[in-house]
């Protein structure tokens, strides 16, 4: 049986198709102004027997495909547990949400915390800050890693932080030190969220921001514990949804 999971995030739509426990296809596209169209384009021509949607656009898709939906929190919990059976704590930094999820030994969600309703400390925040410093996302992370000192960024509001970055550069602050300051700000916010649910052990880091090496390094340093990043951290939710679809179909 082929099961598909579709994760309609705020910035990216992700598709994972699995068969016999193996991932046989993944696809991604930008969500754009029309998430439904983006989702349709992504599944166009893809063969599957069952499909489950997740992500903030899940209910939109449910109306068109008549498929079951699960929250992205559950999808990440299922996906992370399958990819890393020892996983007890997940940090997912996506486009507009940051989630910290705590799992029981059996892999059931026991607690979760999410950021406030604004985009502070999320992927979108990093995008805007990179843009304010005229970096691509790849350059942004590399530049931050190369800095010895960090400029302190005090504001976590995306709009105010952007003004802060502009005034720092206007004062002659070094661009890569500002970049490091921004990365530190996002990390300290994520760690505060993690500490609220305070589970022990290795951290499973997922979501698009987990591609950012500087964030990964800073989190490991701050937490003083191992950080595991799956090969494709962005696909964990879609993969979890596909696994859920398989289990539902099998009735387990």
């Amino acid at each position, binding site marked *: 049986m082929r099961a598909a999971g579709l994760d309609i995030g705020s910035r990216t739509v992700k598709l994972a198709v699995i068969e016999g426990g193996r991932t046989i296809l993944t696809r991604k596209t930008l969500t754009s102004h029309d998430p439904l169209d983006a989702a349709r384009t992504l599944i166009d021509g893809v063969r599957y027997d069952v499909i489950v949607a997740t992500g*903030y656009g899940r209910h939109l898709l449910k109306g068109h495909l008549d498929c079951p939906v699960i929250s992205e929190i*559950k999808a990440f919990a299922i996906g992370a547990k399958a990819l890393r059976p020892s996983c007890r704590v997940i940090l997912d930094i996506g486009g507009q949400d940051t989630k910290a999820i705590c799992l029981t030994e059996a892999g059931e969600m026991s607690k979760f915390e*999410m950021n406030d309703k604004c985009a502070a400390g999320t992927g979108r925040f990093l995008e805007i800050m990179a843009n304010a410093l005229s970096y691509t996302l790849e350059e942004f992370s590399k530049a931050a890693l190369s800095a010895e000192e960090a400029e302190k960024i005090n504001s976590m509001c995306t709009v105010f932080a952007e003004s802060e970055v502009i005034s720092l550069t206007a004062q002659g602050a070094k661009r890569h030190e500002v970049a490091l300051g921004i990365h530190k700000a996002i990390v300290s916010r994520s760690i505060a969220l993690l500490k609220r649910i305070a589970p022990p052990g290795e951290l499973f880091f997922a979501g698009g921001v987990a591609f950012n090496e500087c964030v990964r390094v800073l989190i490991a340093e701050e937490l003083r514990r191992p950080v595991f990043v799956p090969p494709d951290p962005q696909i964990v939710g879609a993969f979890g949804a596909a696994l859920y679809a398989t289990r539902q179909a099998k009735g387990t």
Partner: protein
Amino acid sequence: MNDAVEPLINDEYAGEPPSKRVLAYLQSQRKRGAKIVGTYCGYAPVELIRALDLVPATLCAFSNATIDAAETVLPANLCPLIKSSYGFIITDTCPFFGISDAVVGETTCDGKKKMFELITDYKPMHVMDLPQLPDEPEALAQWTTMIYKLKGFLERVFERTTTDERIEDAISDTNLKIRKMNQIFDYVALDPPVVGWGELYDIFFLAQSATGREMAPLVDDILKKLERRRQDGYIYGAPESTRVMVTGCPVAGDAAKVFNAIEAVGGMIVALDACSGMKTYGAFIEEGTGDPIGAIAARYLTIPCSCMTPNDRRLTEMDKVIERFKPDAVVDVVLQACHSYNVESHKVGENVQDKYGLPFLKIVTDYSQSDIGQIRTRVEALLEMCK
């Protein structure tokens, strides 16, 4: 709700916002010459108001529509309940405020007490100084004094007086109302339940202004309908719904988006642990003490509001609610910038998770509809934890 079932209060206001029915009630009271006293909070001692043959009215505080106007004066980063209340007054859009002949406030929080300073010129207004360490020996004496001062204020404004007998009578009327409301709550506690939050709000709203004696025959009729629903096997919501207790700040109007989100993802609200819900009906006022004002003061000081410290009663009362209504999950609603409920949420979360093993979710929100998607995702994940 299933349309086939008869509304619990089957009058011309069935299906309308619950405020319409209570407004009509107040207007009928005005017609008979009664004077209205506007209140904002569960600490307003309504027994004293009634003993002076005055009718209490809860003032508007739950609409996003008046917040823009309020923010021309008040800071944006303030509790939406305070902003909304103030906005209603300066835009003259709260009909309850319009028909009130006097207004009573309490120093429950900094935002409210400073907002009250801005509305003193609209109506005769009295602010009660609420002690916030309720277990200190002097708290009861102070709050009793404040109730006497309110009595003086109301007697002056309305040029009338009252007696201990009449206050005692108002106490027994409140106790009758509490008994009656709890008979309804027995049906909310059923599993599966036969009544939802919307119909309960119809009753709560009317009971803010109507007396216990007026409510009693209506409640008896409601109880008959609820018993019939039970016997007919009627279930409110889906049979497999997750039972949710909602606690925290008052919720109504635009904040009811949280209730709607819970129901939209398959939850069923079985306990409303807030001043806008069941909290008012959690304890009786002692009768026959010979000191009715002292008895009123003693009861009101036990209201487990987060403005009190320490507020262990919040947890002990919540335990009773959990044991009675048997929720599967708990949602704590915190209105933006309500520091006391926000901080207290930590203890609430620990209590429900550690003591009862219930999944817990804190939602910090305001009256705008901008976070409906995020609220829904969180509530959905909470309910997924119950399966």
